[in-house]
C-alpha cells in the first residue's frame, strides 16, 4: 500500500504549452515498456496487418501514379527515343519539342484561357444551382418533391447521345418552352420575333447549368441534398423563431456550414467541365472563327507528323502529352482543394 502511494507521486520533468511530461518513481523505462507491449500477442498481429495494409495501399497508389510517370517520361522523348527498346523511362535525348509544338500549333494558351472562362463560369453556376435545388429538396415539403428527385436521377440516366441530335437543332434555333423550335414559336420568338442562334457560343452550357441540367448535375444536386438533410432542423427552427425569413436563414446560417461541400461540388464540376468533349464538340462545330478549347490540345500537331515505323506509338505519346497539359491545371487546383474534398464529405454525414 505504501509503495503504491510512493509510485503515484508524480514529478513534472518537462512542461510546454500543450504537454506535460510526468515521471514517477518506479516507472518502467521506455525499453521495458516496449518489451511489455511486444509480449502481448495481438501487438504482432496489429503490426503485420499495418504493414500489409501499407504495402497494399502503396501498390494501388503505384497503379494510379505509374501511367503519369510513363506519360511524363514519354513527353520528353524524341521520335527515335520512343521506339528505342533500350529506353524505358529516361530519354536519351531529352527534348521539349512536343510541348513546344502543342503550345504553338494547338494554341494551348488560347485553349487554356477559353476553357478556364467556360469551366469557371459553369462550375460557379452549377454550384449555386445545386445548393439551391438541393436545399429545396432536402428541407421543404411540397407537392412533387419526390417526383423532382426522380427527375434529377432521370437526367443522369438519359444517355447524352440520345439528346445529341435534338440539342444540336435546339441550339441552332434556341427557344424556350417549345418543341420543334424552328416550326413553333416559343417564349423568345414571341418576345423578340425570332429564335436565338447559340451555336459556337458558351451560352448553351450556361443555360444548361442554370437549369441544373448539364453534365452530372444530378450528382451535385444529390450530394447537396444529402448534405442539407444532415443539417439538424433545429438550426433553422431557432432562426425562424428569432424572426429570420427562409432565404436569410439559408444564406446566413445554412450556407456557411456548407462551404466544404460547395468546394467539393465546385471541384467536381470545374474539372468535369474542363475535360468535357461531348458538349463542346456539339456546340462548337465550324472552323470559321475557331474557338480553341481543351479537346484541340491533344491533337497531333502538323510539324510532328512523321511517317516511320513508330508513328502510332509516337502519336500516342503526343496525345498523352496533350492530356498531361490538359490536366496540369486541374492537378494544381486539386492540390489546393483536396483537403476540402475529404472535409466536405466527412462533415456531411451523408445518409442514404
Amino acid at each position: 500500500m505504501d509503495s503504491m502511494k510512493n509510485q503515484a507521486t508524480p514529478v513534472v520533468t518537462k512542461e510546454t504549452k500543450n504537454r506535460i511530461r510526468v515521471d514517477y518513481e518506479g516507472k518502467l523505462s521506455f525499453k521495458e515498456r516496449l518489451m511489455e507491449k511486444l509480449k502481448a500477442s495481438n501487438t504482432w498481429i496489429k503490426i503485420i496487418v499495418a504493414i500489409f495494409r501499407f504495402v497494399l495501399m502503396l501498390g494501388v497508389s503505384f497503379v494510379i501514379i505509374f501511367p503519369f510517370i510513363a506519360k511524363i517520361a514519354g513527353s520528353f522523348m524524341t521520335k527515335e527515343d520512343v521506339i528505342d527498346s533500350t529506353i524505358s523511362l529516361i530519354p536519351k535525348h531529352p527534348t521539349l519539342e512536343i510541348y513546344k509544338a502543342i503550345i504553338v500549333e494547338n494554341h494551348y494558351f488560347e485553349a487554356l484561357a477559353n476553357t478556364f472562362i467556360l469551366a469557371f463560369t459553369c462550375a460557379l453556376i452549377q454550384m449555386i444551382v445545386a445548393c439551391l435545388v438541393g436545399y429545396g429538396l432536402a428541407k421543404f415539403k411540397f407537392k412533387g418533391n419526390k417526383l423532382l428527385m426522380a427527375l434529377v436521377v432521370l437526367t443522369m440516366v438519359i444517355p447524352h447521345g440520345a439528346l445529341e441530335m435534338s440539342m444540336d437543332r435546339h441550339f441552332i434555333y434556341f427557344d424556350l418552352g417549345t418543341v420543334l423550335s424552328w416550326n413553333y414559336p416559343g417564349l423568345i420568338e414571341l418576345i423578340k420575333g425570332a429564335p436565338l442562334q447559340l451555336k459556337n457560343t458558351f451560352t448553351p452550357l450556361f443555360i444548361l447549368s442554370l437549369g441544373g441540367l448539364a453534365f452530372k448535375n444530378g450528382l451535385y444536386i444529390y450530394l447537396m441534398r444529402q448534405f442539407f438533410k444532415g443539417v439538424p432542423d433545429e438550426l433553422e427552427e431557432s432562426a425562424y423563431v428569432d424572426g429570420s425569413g427562409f432565404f436569410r436563414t439559408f444564406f446566413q446560417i445554412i450556407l456557411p456550414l456548407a462551404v466544404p461541400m460547395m468546394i467539393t461540388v465546385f471541384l467536381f464540376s470545374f474539372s468535369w467541365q474542363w475535360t468535357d468533349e461531348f458538349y463542346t464538340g456539339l456546340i462548337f462545330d465550324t472552323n470559321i472563327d475557331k474557338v480553341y478549347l481543351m479537346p484541340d490540345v491533344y491533337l497531333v500537331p502538323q510539324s510532328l507528323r512523321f511517317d516511320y515505323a513508330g508513328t502510332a506509338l509516337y502519336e500516342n505519346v503526343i496525345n498523352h502529352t496533350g492530356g498531361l497539359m490538359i490536366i496540369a491545371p486541374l492537378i494544381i487546383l486539386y492540390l489546393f482543394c483536396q483537403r476540402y474534398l475529404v472535409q466536405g464529405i466527412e462533415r456531411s454525414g451523408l445518409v442514404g
Partner: protein
Amino acid sequence: MEKQLTIKRRRKVSLDSRKARAGYVFVAPFILGILLVYLPILLDSIWFSFNDIKPAYDENGVAYIALVPQGLKYYVFAFSDMAEGGFISNLLAGLQQLVFEVPAVIIFSLFIAVVLNGKMLGRAAFRAIFFVPVIISTGIMTSLNANDMVSGEMAGGINDGSGGGIINALEVEALFRKMAIGGELVQVVVNLVNDIYQIINYSGVQMLIFLAGLQSISESIYEACRIDGATAWETFWKVTFPMISPMILVNAVYTIIDSFTRSTNVTMSYISDKIANESQATAMYWIYFIIVIGIIALIAGVISSFIFYQRKD
C-alpha cells in the same frame, strides 16, 4: 375560445404553405430548366427517332428542317439487328461487362474506403492520391486512357516482357485448374485484376460516398462493440456493413449509371461510331435507356430489400 383555435389553425396552415412556397422558389431553377429547356429537347429527341430529318428549302430559299415520318422502322431495325457485332450482340456485351464491373467497383471502393477511414501511416497522402482519378478520369481523359500505349510500352521495359499485365494469366490459370475451378471464371478474375487501373478510375466518387457513410457511423457503437469483446471482423460485418448498406444502394445505382452512360461503354461507342443515321442512333439510344432504367429498377429493388436503415427519431 373557439375563435382563438381557428386563428391558431389558420396560422399553422399558412406557415406550412409558406414553407412549401419557399421550397418551390429554391427548386425553381430546376423546374424551369426541365419545363422550358429539357423537356422540349427530350420530346424532340423521341420524335426524331420516329422520323427522318432532312434539310430542305422553302419557296423563298430559306433553309428549314423537314421531318419525314418513318413509324417504328428504326426500332424494328434495332431489334432485328441480330448479326454478330450488331446492336443486340453489343447490348449483351455491355450487360455482361456491367455484371462484372459493378460488384468489382463496389467491393473495391468499399474496401479502400474502410482502409482509408482507419488510422494508418501516410493516410493523408494516400487519400490525396486515391481521389486524383475522380477529377481527371472523365471526358477527354477517358477516351485518351482507352487508347493508352504509352504506359504499356514503358512498363514493358520494366517487367521485361511479362505481357504488361499485373498478374500472369497462365500462372493463375494453372493454379486454379488444380483447384478444379472453371477456366472462364479464372479468366474473369484475371481480367478484373488486370483492369485494376480502370476499376480505380471508375470508383472515385463511390469511395467518397462510402467514406462519408463511414464517417457518419457513431463512434459510441464501436466503443460498445469493443467493450463487449467483438473482434474487428465481427464489428465490420455486424455494425459497419449494415450501417453502410444504404450507401451500397446509392453506389450501385451510381455505378450502373456511370458505367452505362460513359462514352467508352461498349454499346455507347458502338452506337456513336457505327451508326451513321442519326434517327437510327437516337432510336437505339432510347431502347438502351429503357433497358438501363429497367436494370436500375431491378437492382435497386433487390438491394433495397437487404438494406438496414438506422432509425433516427
